[in-house]
């Protein structure tokens, strides 16, 4: 009988210990680490003198898996990276592949509008989870229920459009998988109607709450210089004063036609990041309202190119060509011309980028994700120095990392 080699336990590089210092390992099973993050913390009394985040506990080899799937299949694993806003990952990936194919301009406008709608809905849903869990971290439990109620509505809308709540794989190469179902827009209208009141509730619960302000104001201050050097993007960078938003700087999916502001603050503390994200949710809803008006006009939702998108199911029974195209795409996949491309989108956490290399085959040669959360988690090394150990969870919460994306 052969036996399985049991590897020796993972060695942790504990920092040197002396005098009044103590080393505490926070996580990886700690509920406030929002996943499986371990922070080996050196403390003097209650003050953190050194913090060393350890990641990799959720590593699932998604990049390797994607290399071994067809271009169209890879999105199923890619959606699972950032599981709080799966559609931003799929969106970025498909935008990159469409650039390689050179079909970016041929995506039908209605498909673009639905993509924008989904991206913004998922931004709100993702911020809802962040706000709810951030609230729990500082002891404000009721916020969680208000947030998850709002998120439920968005997940219901996702389910109505794509068939699943979390990972619908609704976005496809060349468009989206089917038009919005009947009655969808009415439900969307109901959400648009409900949103301002719910936002006001959330603001009333936390924004001027003295306990919440005590816990977040001047905690985890990130200077603009540090934010740039450490590669912070998204709300974390904008809370430090830089109005960099991929939607404005490198518009995609027709974002240039929508009116929205990029909320910024200059304080750079946990409270500023909280305010920026709240404002962002409202800006997202502003975009959704504009998209909603466009969605009244019907139109195709998939590119008209049988080499990229399978023909509609109805045509398969009557057209030999359609049947062949369908069979080719399903059994062999799409072939993408050789080249490399970097495409980024503004995900809920920041600049989400994909660097994709194709060798002309039906599978990607390399799919590299630029995960915003990983760079934000790395910030813990500098942000926590000199803070109280109790504020560690506030800082982690204010950075909003998703470990599916950090570890991939």
């Amino acid at each position, binding site marked *: *009988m*052969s*036996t*399985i*080699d049991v*590897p*020796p336990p*993972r*060695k942790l*590089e504990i920092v040197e210990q002396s005098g009044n210092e103590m080393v505490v390992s926070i996580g990886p099973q700690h509920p406030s680490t929002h996943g499986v993050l371990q922070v080996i913390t050196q403390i003097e009394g209650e003050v953190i003198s050194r913090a060393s985040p350890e*990641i*990799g506990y959720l*590593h699932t*080899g998604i*990049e*390797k898996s994607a290399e*071994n799937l067809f271009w169209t299949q890879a999105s199923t694993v890619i959606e699972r990276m950032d599981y709080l806003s799966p559609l931003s990952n799929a969106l970025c990936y498909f935008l990159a592949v469409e*650039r390689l194919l*050179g079909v970016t301009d041929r995506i039908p406008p209605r498909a673009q509008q639905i993509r924008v709608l989904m991206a913004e809905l998922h931004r709100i849903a993702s911020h809802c989870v962040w706000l709810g869990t951030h609230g729990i971290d500082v002891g404000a439990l009721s916020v969680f229920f208000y947030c998850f109620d709002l998120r439920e509505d968005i997940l219901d809308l996702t389910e109505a459009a794509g068939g699943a709540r979390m990972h619908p794989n609704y976005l496809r190469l060349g468009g989206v998988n089917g038009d919005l179902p009947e009655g969808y827009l009415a439900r969307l209208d109901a959400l648009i109607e409900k949103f301002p009141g719910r936002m006001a509730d959330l603001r009333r619960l936390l924004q001027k709450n003295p306990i919440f302000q005590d816990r977040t104001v001047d905690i985890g201050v990130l200077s*603009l*210089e540090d934010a*740039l*050097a*450490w*590669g912070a*993007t998204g709300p974390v960078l904008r809370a430090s*004063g*830089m*109005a*960099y*938003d991929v939607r*404005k*700087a*490198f518009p995609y999916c027709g974002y240039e036609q929508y009116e929205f502001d*990029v909320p*910024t603050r*200059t304080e750079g503390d946990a409270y500023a990041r909280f305010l920026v994200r709240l404002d962002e949710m409202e800006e997202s809803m502003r975009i959704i309202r504009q998209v909603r008006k466009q969605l009244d006009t019907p139109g195709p939702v998939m590119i008209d190119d049988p080499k990229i998108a399978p023909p509609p199911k109805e045509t398969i029974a009557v057209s030999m060509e359609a049947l062949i195209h369908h069979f080719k795409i399903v059994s062999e996949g799409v072939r993408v011309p*050789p*080249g*490399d*491309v*970097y*495409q980024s989108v503004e995900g809920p956490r920041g*600049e989400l*980028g994909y*660097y994709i*290399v194709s*060798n*002309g*085959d039906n599978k990607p*040669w*390399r799919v*590299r994700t*630029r995960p915003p959360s*990983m*760079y934000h988690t*790395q910030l813990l090394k*500098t942000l926590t120095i000199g803070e109280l150990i109790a504020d560690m969870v506030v800082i982690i919460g204010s950075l909003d990392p998703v470990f599916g994306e950090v*570890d*991939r």
Partner: protein
Amino acid sequence: MPSPQTPPIGSTALDPTAVRPPIDDAIIERVEPSELRARLIALKREGFTMLLDIGGVDYLERKPRFDVVYHLLKLPPRVSSVAEIGRPERRRLLCGVPGEDARVPSVADLWPSADWAEREVYDLFGIVFEGHPDLRRIQMPADWEGHPLRKDYPLRGPARERTPRPVFANKSNVRAGTPPSGRTAAALQRQIALARGQVPPVQGEAK
């Protein structure tokens, strides 16, 4: 001004000097590992304040085998509005690294964001970043063998090959336990032949 280049593509024709018009927003440069640090320092002085990402690509049959890819972004170093930022310049540096003795200089001292990014490339590709303050594995366990994102690393990992056969398989006249990798099929055939008595056992070989 360096000309835009693409990394060599095509599983059969891997050509490191293929030139094509860029299809994204970045200006692409190719640098040698020896010039990499000087070039990145110069770019940082030019105002590329942010190192967005470092990634690796394994081209397997190409020479040099690996590419280390640096994504840079030129954001102003002060508080700026959307209009002031405009359309910031993107730059992509491709650095070819040979397969044997893969080494590049570290830039973790220029941009702290490079710290984990370089550790990840080291972990998954086995490319050593010289001068990195703390170069150890980041995603895989510290005692892991091999570098999973290399193209010659099996998809399911070597651990699968060591997994013992399930109990019901013991009913067969083949000994339990998959033989060590590398001689799987042949060894199995031999075991079967041995068990059936079709070949005489060599001295010391289990029946």
